[in-house]
């Protein structure tokens, strides 16, 4: 057994220096092949290879040895070794040969590869015997190093790309927020500026309708009625737009005060009944639960009810009934409005509560919709901590419901 010890001449702790040893199967050092790190003192022949490790890392070294013994190879374990007064993590690799174990440790993974390559070139008995395994190790190490390099490059490329995207996204977000604020501001302004001339149209159309009725013929009276009706619809639309822009810019303010839902329903339905009966639609109210007064914005909840009821009438035929129920379901008060109208196709139900969505179902008397009512309703109900829902069957009618939490904690 001949030993080749180039490292013993002059110790230079080059970055990729390492140590190579041949051991018995039980890990007892048989022979030091290379000692570039001047570590021979820690592992003289007869000592265990685990003695090379810092006592704090002895357990890991034993696990490493166990892996080499059972799996015949272990590659790139990081185990700390005391090196000239400092604890230095070394990359360890090991392989089983026909008559023992070859253990290599180096400061860098590259050093590990280099040592393996050098060992495989040394022409002696031991290295011949371990050439195959060192070659495998070297290959594995080279591949791993390459893979690591490629991975590193890939990771940093992806990282760069991600942070670029993130910057871009942040920029776009700021831009979007600005545009959205601008949109809401514009909506609010436009709506405000539209209301003034609209008010003038409505005032004078009313003058005409009331004062010129005698001098106008029937067709002309209809003209005036059309002006009035259209300006009223325009006003409704502008008000909805104002509502939506206020809500979307986070200005949904709820003026909460204890409200009896039953009393609110009775009042609201008395008002809506007058309108419904013009279309020969009967509104029925069923108060099925005796609920305490809840902290609500009464005006806003009336707006929700008005919307549900006017929709129910809009899409129902004369002679039908709209049923309004107030009941309790778990921790919620539920108000439902069921009509015997045309129903809504299932495919449209999901989008129904989104702004500007209009159903394909035609109103029964040509009533118009702004497409904003249900979107506003949803926001108002959500603001109270409740939920809106709809069930519908084409040809049989629809049921719109909303919940309000009975416990004020949910608000």
């Amino acid at each position, binding site marked *: 057994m001949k030993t080749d010890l180039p490292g013993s001449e002059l110790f230079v702790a080059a970055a990729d220096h390492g140590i190579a040893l041949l051991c018995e199967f039980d890990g007892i050092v048989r022979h030091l092949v290379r000692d570039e790190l001047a570590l021979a003192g820690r592992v003289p022949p007869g000592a265990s290879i685990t003695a090379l490790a810092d006592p704090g890392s002895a357990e890991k070294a034993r696990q490493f040895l166990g892996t080499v013994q059972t799996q015949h190879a272990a590659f790139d374990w990081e185990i700390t070794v005391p090196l000239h007064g400092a604890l230095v993590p070394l990359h360890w690799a090991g392989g089983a040969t026909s008559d023992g174990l070859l253990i290599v440790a180096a400061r860098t993974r590259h050093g590990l590869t280099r040592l393996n390559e050098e060992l495989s070139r040394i022409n002696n008995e031991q290295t011949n015997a371990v050439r195959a395994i060192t070659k495998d190790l070297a290959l594995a190490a080279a591949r791993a190093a390459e893979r690591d390099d490629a991975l590193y490059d890939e990771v940093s490329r992806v990282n760069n790309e991600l942070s670029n995207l993130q910057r871009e996204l942040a920029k776009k977000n700021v831009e979007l927020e600005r545009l959205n604020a601008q949109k809401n501001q514009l909506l*609010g302004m436009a709506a*405000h500026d539209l*209301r*003034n*001339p*609209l*008010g*003038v149209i*409505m*005032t*004078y159309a*009313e*003058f005409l309708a*009331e004062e010129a009725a005698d001098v106008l013929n029937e067709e002309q009276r209809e003209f005036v009625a059309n002006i009035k009706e259209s300006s009223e619809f325009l*006003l409704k639309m502008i*008000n909805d737009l*104002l*509502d939506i822009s*206020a809500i979307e810019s986070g*200005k949904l*303010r709820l003026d909460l005060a204890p409200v009896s839902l039953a009393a609110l329903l009775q009042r609201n339905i008395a008002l809506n009944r007058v309108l419904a009966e013009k279309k020969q639609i009967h509104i029925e109210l069923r108060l099925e639960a005796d609920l305490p007064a809840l902290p609500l914005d009464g005006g806003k909840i009336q707006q929700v009810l008005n919307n549900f009821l006017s929709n129910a009438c809009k899409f129902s035929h004369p002679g039908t009934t709209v049923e309004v129920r107030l009941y309790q379901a778990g921790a919620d008060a539920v108000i439902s409005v069921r009509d015997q109208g045309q129903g809504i196709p299932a495919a449209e139900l999901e989008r129904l509560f989104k702004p500007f969505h209009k159903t394909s179902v035609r109103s029964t008397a040509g009533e118009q919709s702004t497409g904003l009512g249900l979107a506003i309703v949803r926001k108002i109900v959500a603001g109270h901590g409740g939920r809106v829902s709809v069930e519908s069957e084409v040809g049989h009618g629809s049921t719109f419901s909303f919940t309000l939490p009975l416990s004020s904690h949910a608000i």
Partner: protein
Amino acid sequence: MLSKTQPASTSIPRTRILVVDDNVAALKGCARLLVQAGYDVAQAEDGLTALALVRTYRPALVLLDLVLPDISGREVLRQMKADPDLAAISVVLLTSIATSLEAMSAGLKVGADDYIARPIGNHELLARVRAVLR
């Protein structure tokens, strides 16, 4: 900037209302409605004319648009309430900003009697005016 619409016939003194609005069509429409309802009406298209008229015309009520070309309706209101001679005159603010709750509460704090969000139907406007004058 000042015009007066005299009622058709006057035997008993009619309640005087000053309408202030820079939108002439709206101003005339509102004045016409009030005259027909039996009020004596003066009109102003800007804030300074309104302040001058308040002193000479001595209305019982001022319908005051918030947005005016010279000084704001709120400033007209403030000056009126700061003058002991004018403070007792009722003021109803007119605006087309329906959702501006802050503007409303701010106006009411300075001493407005009511607040009308326009557009408003003719009948409703008259009802609100009557309610304030009652």
